[in-house]
């Protein structure tokens, strides 16, 4: 019954979405408020039904109902409860259901909190959301129904891919989808603006919070996925330039550009056409990402779908939405009026440069991902594009971007004074140079690039600090006044500073990890000692243990430094009998921002075991950076001006104030 109810709820959601696709638009044409308001009710009802459908699937997984094919293929009765729940989206059908559930959530949020939007704009936005939703409901119902039954139900399930049985699966995909799908809102706003032929600074103010929410989740989602790969895959890599990772990086790059261009549009009413185009492109890249991952066109470590009918269906959706929206853009964009003039050296100019660099970086990733496919199809030339290519092309672009980052927020709108800003950034520049000199002297003879890159990271962080110091007058004014000004500073200014500093922090982590990573690979017997980066790791012994749905071999290492015991590390290897596969559970020891990383290989007959030990200096900065960026995003989101639906009592109070 539960499976059938879930299936039926999804069909009802499709019917609601079809209504929502058409009726509000007719209402907008006829200027009929009642018809336009239909969108609001249907969006909320859609959320209700898709939510019910999703909960139905969760219940089926939790109760291990193996008469449902999706549960049979991806679950096991002995699996811990957490993984029974996360296993819902650890497979193709379930993850698509999560995709539409999040789409419905965003639609519902616009419907519930979009009271400050003009009625016809909201009707248009929700109608476009419904087009996307209809396409994906159809996709699920036609090609990927998670509620299909098996005629003769088996007794036991086939278990979830062991690599996915991790807390990472609970967090990473939902976060990523909140980001991916969140950009559908800016897309819908862009299409609505093009259909209405009206766009102004207010539009940018409505769109920016939604873009920001999506961007925050995507940032955290990507960082989380990277950390998951780092500790789960067992060789300490954290970014592989895998097509699937690229699929999430591209919307992030375009979305970051969008955040910045929307800022210009909101403040200065300029870059309107470009902002609209970026909104379309960002979500198009999200759709492309969904296509790459879900169709299996680029089979990679992440892609578990290989059925071509699905690929063709998503490709159709992709062509329809990207082609349709770009044609609409081409037809209507010229009628949008340009506003807000500015000199090349200005805040606007800096943000245009930011957009140029981010877009080119995004194009590089897009090309690197699709070029080998195109060459194989068109020229029958088999080639690969991997990490060394991206390191060579992506790094220079980001270096340029990071050099420019501290200048941007300090330039004045309309016409900036580059020389003046350079003088004000002198301290930050000196800090960067001093760090370069220190690191270079300390690592004598090593790579010359690493100290330079770390100096750049310090310059970016110091630049962000300089901006805040200047705005609060920390140096010029008495401390109390500065504190007061700091409190009065718009939260978005703090957000900018945190996000930009996060970039510098991440860069320092990346450079340290890749340059000074020490590695020890050997076969170890009991009581053998490995020396890595000043630590001594003694193998105390090997143990066997029985887990809920796996057997585990644990190695116990006693970690000491200068003869003093620091900690005990217990890396393990798990064998999952149902799938006949195994995972490595690396042991991590965090010391400050650095980590010691131990993972196990195969044991041989004499009781010795292959061991890989890494010391990764400042590796955690790689992920603290994005967390800082996301925190900056949250601060910016809490800025008064951007609050999604400003509460009414506050407004009433403001109106009363003059009377006092």
């Amino acid at each position, binding site marked *: 019954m539960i499976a059938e109810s879930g299936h039926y709820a999804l069909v009802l959601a499709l019917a609601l979405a079809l209504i929502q696709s058409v009726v509000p638009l007719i209402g907008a044409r006829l200027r009929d408020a009642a018809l336009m308001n239909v969108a609001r009710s249907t969006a909320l009802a859609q959320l209700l039904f898709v939510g019910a459908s999703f909960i139905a699937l969760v219940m089926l997984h939790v109760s291990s109902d193996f008469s449902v094919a999706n549960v049979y293929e991806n679950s096991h009765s002995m699996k811990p409860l957490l993984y029974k729940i996360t296993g819902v989206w650890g497979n193709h059908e379930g993850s698509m259901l999560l995709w539409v559930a999040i789409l419905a959530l965003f639609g519902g949020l616009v419907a519930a909190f979009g009271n400050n939007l003009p009625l016809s704009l909201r009707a248009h936005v929700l109608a476009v959301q419904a087009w996307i939703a209809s396409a994906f409901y159809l996709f699920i119902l036609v090609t990927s129904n998670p509620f299909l039954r098996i005629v003769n139900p088996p007794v036991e399930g086939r278990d979830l891919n062991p690599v996915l049985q991790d807390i990472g699966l609970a967090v990473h995909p939902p976060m990523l989808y909140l980001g991916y799908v969140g950009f559908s809102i800016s897309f819908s706003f862009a299409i609505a603006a093009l259909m209405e032929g009206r766009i102004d600074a207010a539009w940018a103010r409505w769109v920016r919070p939604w873009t920001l929410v999506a961007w925050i989740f995507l940032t955290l989602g990507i960082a989380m996925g990277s950390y998951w790969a780092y500790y789960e895959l*067992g060789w300490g890599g954290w970014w592989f330039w895998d097509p699937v990772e690229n699929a999430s990086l591209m919307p992030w790059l375009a979305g970051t550009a969008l955040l910045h261009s929307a800022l210009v549009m909101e403040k200065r009413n300029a870059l309107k056409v470009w902002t609209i185009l970026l909104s379309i492109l960002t979500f198009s890249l999200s759709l492309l990402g969904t296509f790459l991952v879900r169709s299996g066109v680029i089979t990679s470590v992440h892609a578990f779908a290989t059925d071509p009918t699905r690929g063709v269906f998503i490709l159709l959706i992709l062509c329809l939405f990207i082609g349709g929206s770009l044609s609409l853009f081409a037809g209507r964009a010229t009628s949008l009026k340009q506003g807000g003039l500015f000199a090349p050296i200005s805040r606007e100019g800096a943000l*245009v440069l930011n957009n140029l660099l981010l877009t080119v970086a995004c194009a590089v990733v897009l090309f690197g991902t699709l070029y080998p496919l195109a060459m194989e199809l068109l020229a029958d030339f088999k*080639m690969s594009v991997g990490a060394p290519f991206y390191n060579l092309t992506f790094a220079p672009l980001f270096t340029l971007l990071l050099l420019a980052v501290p200048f941007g927020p300090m330039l004045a709108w309309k016409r900036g004074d580059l020389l003046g800003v350079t003088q004000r950034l002198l301290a930050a520049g000196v800090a960067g140079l001093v760090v370069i000199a220190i690191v270079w002297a300390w690592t004598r003879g090593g790579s010359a690039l690493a100290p330079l890159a770390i100096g750049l990271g310090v310059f970016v962080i110091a630049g962000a600090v300089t901006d805040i110091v200047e705005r609060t007058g920390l140096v010029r004014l008495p401390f109390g006044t500065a504190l007061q000004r700091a409190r009065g500073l718009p939260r978005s200014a703090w957000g900018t500073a945190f996000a930009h500093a996060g970039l510098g922090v991440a860069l320092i982590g990346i450079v340290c990890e890749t340059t000074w990573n020490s590695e020890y690979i*050997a076969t170890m017997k009991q009581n053998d000692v490995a020396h890595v980066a000043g630590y001594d790791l003694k193998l105390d012994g090997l143990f066997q243990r029985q887990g809920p749905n796996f057997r585990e071999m644990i190695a116990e290492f006693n970690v000491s430094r200068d003869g003093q015991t620091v900690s005990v590390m217990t890396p393990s290897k798990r064998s999952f009998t149902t799938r006949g596969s195994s995972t490595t559970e690396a042991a991590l020891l965090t010391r400050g921002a650095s980590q010691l990383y131990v993972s196990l290989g195969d044991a041989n007959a004499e009781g010795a075991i292959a061991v890989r030990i890494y010391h990764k200096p400042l590796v955690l900065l790689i992920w603290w950076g994005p967390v800082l960026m996301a925190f900056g995003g949250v601060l910016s989101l809490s800025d008064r001006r951007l609050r999604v639906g400003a509460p009414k009592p506050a407004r009433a109070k403001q109106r009363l104030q003059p009377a006092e």
Partner: protein
Amino acid sequence: MRRMMLAVVALMLLAMPVAYAVQPDEIMSDPAKEVRARDLSRELRCMVCQNQSIDDSDAPLARDLRLLVRERIAAGDSNSQVLDFLVARYGEFVLLKPRFERQTVLLWLLAPLLLIGGGLALWLQIRRRSRSGADVPAPPLSPEEETRLAALMSDEAKSS
């Protein structure tokens, strides 16, 4: 296409690799040569895996390739000779950093071309727009606007 399918099948047979790259017994006795071998390994693709270098992969083929690379280094090959040897054997597919050739021109030149082209276009447009904005005076008021303005001004004069 057949080869692609083969790779897919091979990938499924391998299940999820327990990623475990360089084995202890592979390591060369000369540390300098081992460093070279590792650097080369990072630029070579494990052909049965998806987008993994032979340095990262635990597939048997990757191990064979790692040993082959070390064999060539031990035989006194330079880095580019090792790469040439592998390309001659397995084709360009083995290189994770494609060579600059007729087929890859567009890939390599995309970033500089876009950057220079986009930068120039933007610079010209911004300059043109800021010039035209500064030089062209605001259009003169129409007669109706003039009368409305006069009316407003006189209103204000009266009320104050």
